């Protein structure tokens, strides 16, 4: 159990240390990175099975029982997030190894990538609010570096936006931590869960809202999301893919965790979150409709779809949270895939601008299929995973009589379909032999890039097929979130 919980955090760091040491040998770095993430993937899969079987598990780091030490803890939600995150990291790593220029120009890529993995894992597993801050810093620092590797002018410009906004979020997080510690004298989430309830309502509400803002910046909700569409599209495709799939979801995870665990029902700002969710969906999708670059369209859709997850949270019902969880599962896979496809398109054509693209299906029929399936899924078209996720949220919303937000979510999915078909119609349809950069890939490179993308497409189809058990798992995870006793007792060792 110790290894299961600590391994996903410590092993990537070990890998990172080795990678820095092996700096001169590209292939050694590759082997280390792939092996490390594979090992972590196995560990986290075992962890998920174990947690689903036995319920929440916890390890007291350093042997110091909570709340003195830091606790690593995995409930179903954390384990699900971890498994998905590691799978995405692994797939994208394989893709990056195949792609010319993405990782090979920079000796720093592999170690920083592994640091990112460690940070993401720690964020999901930590049971301590300050340690969560540290985890955020780890993954953010890694993301700053990955985003600006190469140092092109547009990268620096957008990296600046990203770094500055993230730093503001970090400062706010620290301030929130100061307030939390001032009010309760503890940082352990489970301990907080008991002590926060005793606080005066105003202080509690203020803290809850401050944390929503802090995590809201990271998860890119309205009106805190502006940085995202400006910064994501300029990074190399594998980097954007990982960011798109994972980073905002870490924020969403923190939102889910903090709002359900820390605050008693009377402090939960359900209505506010639903309003925010609706605005996030709408403004995000309207932004996407306006864009004419594939990666920018996809980036705005990240924002829009964060709204769906927040909607599930805002309902504060088991069904709503289960919907949010299954939506996250679906979204992480599909979004990552789409960015990888966008990267393949850019690789082949040398551009991601719709105005310069046409008729690509004639040149790359496989790519057309690899785009179409996740695109339909993203738009919530049945029978793909996005439909199941959307249906779960719609049923939950109707069940909670939140009709307005349900209506908004349905309308937004129409616009999502619109902009997906815009990409399809302009990129893959159209006359001509299609745009061709002449940069064809060597067979092994192509196998790595298309293979990893295809693997993720297959995974998203598998999610749809196995939606029954996955939704049941999501429901169990949601039930854990709504009833915090199991978590608190496991952490505090009662």
């Amino acid at each position, binding site marked *: 159990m110790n290894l299961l919980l600590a391994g996903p955090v410590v092993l990537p760091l070990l890998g990172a240390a080795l990678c820095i040491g092996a700096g001169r040998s590209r292939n050694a770095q590759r082997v280390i990175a792939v092996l490390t993430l594979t090992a972590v993937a196995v560990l986290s899969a075992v962890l998920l099975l174990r947690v689903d079987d036995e319920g929440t598990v916890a390890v007291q780091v350093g042997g110091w029982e909570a709340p003195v030490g830091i606790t690593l803890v995995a409930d179903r939600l954390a384990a699900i997030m971890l498994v998905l995150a590691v799978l995405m990291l692994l797939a994208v790593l394989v893709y990056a190894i195949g792609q010319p220029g993405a990782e090979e120009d920079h000796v720093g890529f592999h170690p920083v990538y592994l640091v990112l993995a460690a940070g993401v894992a720690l964020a999901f597993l930590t049971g301590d609010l300050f340690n969560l801050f*540290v985890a955020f810093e780890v993954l953010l620092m890694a993301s700053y570096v990955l985003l600006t590797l190469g140092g092109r002018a547009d990268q620096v*410009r957008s990296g600046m936006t990203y770094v*500055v906004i993230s*730093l503001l979020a970090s*400062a706010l997080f620290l*301030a929130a*931590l100061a307030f939390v*510690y*001032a009010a309760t004298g503890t940082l352990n989430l489970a301990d907080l869960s008991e002590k926060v309830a005793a606080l005066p309502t105003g202080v509690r509400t203020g803290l809850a809202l401050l944390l929503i803002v802090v995590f809201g910046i990271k998860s890119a909700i309205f009106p805190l999301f502006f940085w995202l569409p400006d910064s994501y599209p300029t990074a190399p495709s594998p980097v954007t893919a990982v960011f798109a799939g994972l980073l905002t979801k870490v924020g969403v995870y923190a939102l889910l965790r903090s709002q359900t665990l820390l605050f008693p029902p009377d402090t939960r700002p359900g209505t506010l979150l639903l309003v925010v969710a609706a605005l996030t969906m709408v403004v995000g999708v309207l932004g996407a409709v306006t864009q004419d670059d594939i990666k920018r369209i996809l980036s705005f859709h990240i924002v829009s779809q964060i709204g769906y997850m927040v909607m599930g949270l805002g309902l504060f019902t088991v069904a709503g949270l289960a919907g949010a969880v299954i939506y996250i599962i679906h979204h992480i896979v599909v979004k990552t895939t789409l960015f990888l496809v966008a990267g393949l398109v850019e690789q082949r054509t040398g551009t991601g601008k719709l105005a310069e693209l046409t008729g690509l299906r004639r040149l790359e029929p496989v790519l057309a299929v690899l785009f179409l399936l996740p695109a339909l899924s993203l738009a919530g078209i049945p029978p793909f995973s996005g439909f199941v996720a959307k249906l779960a949220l719609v049923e939950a919303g109707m069940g909670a009589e939140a009709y307005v937000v349900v209506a908004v979510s349905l309308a937004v999915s129409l616009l999502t379909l619109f902009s997906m078909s815009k990409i399809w119609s302009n990129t893959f349809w159209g006359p001509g032999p299609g745009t061709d950069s002449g940069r064809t890939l060597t067979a092994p490179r192509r196998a790595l890039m298309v293979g990893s993308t295809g693997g993720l497409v297959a995974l998203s189809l598998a999610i749809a097929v196995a939606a029954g058990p996955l939704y049941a798992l999501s429901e169990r995870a949601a039930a854990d979130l709504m009833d915090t006793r199991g978590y608190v007792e496991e952490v505090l060792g009662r």
Partner: protein
Amino acid sequence: MSVLMAVTAGVLCATGTYLVLGRQLSRVIIGIAMLGHGVNVLLVLSGGDGGDPVLVGEDVTDFADPLPQALVLTAIVITFGVISFLLALAYRSWVVTADDEVEDDVEDRRIAREAEHLLDDRGDEGAER
């Protein structure tokens, strides 16, 4: 916690905010550092009014709360790393743009111009593109 130090933290945060909202990158960085100072004051204050250094075994009873100190220490070091990176980024920005200003996003500005254009004369483009 005293009102004096709380207000000091507030002033540090407010001036940090003011600097961050400027256009020059170096100002923004200074602002972030200033915000960091303000937040560090807050963190230290969250442990109470302070007291004697927490070296156990020495003959004092009025310990300051050591935990916030450890947190601040972590925060200081992290901030140092991040600010170093940000400075490197600023340096790089200066190299590639010969400018210290935080530019607006090019694509966003283009979209905004097109929006104005669209609103001026209702264009006749249809659903495609």
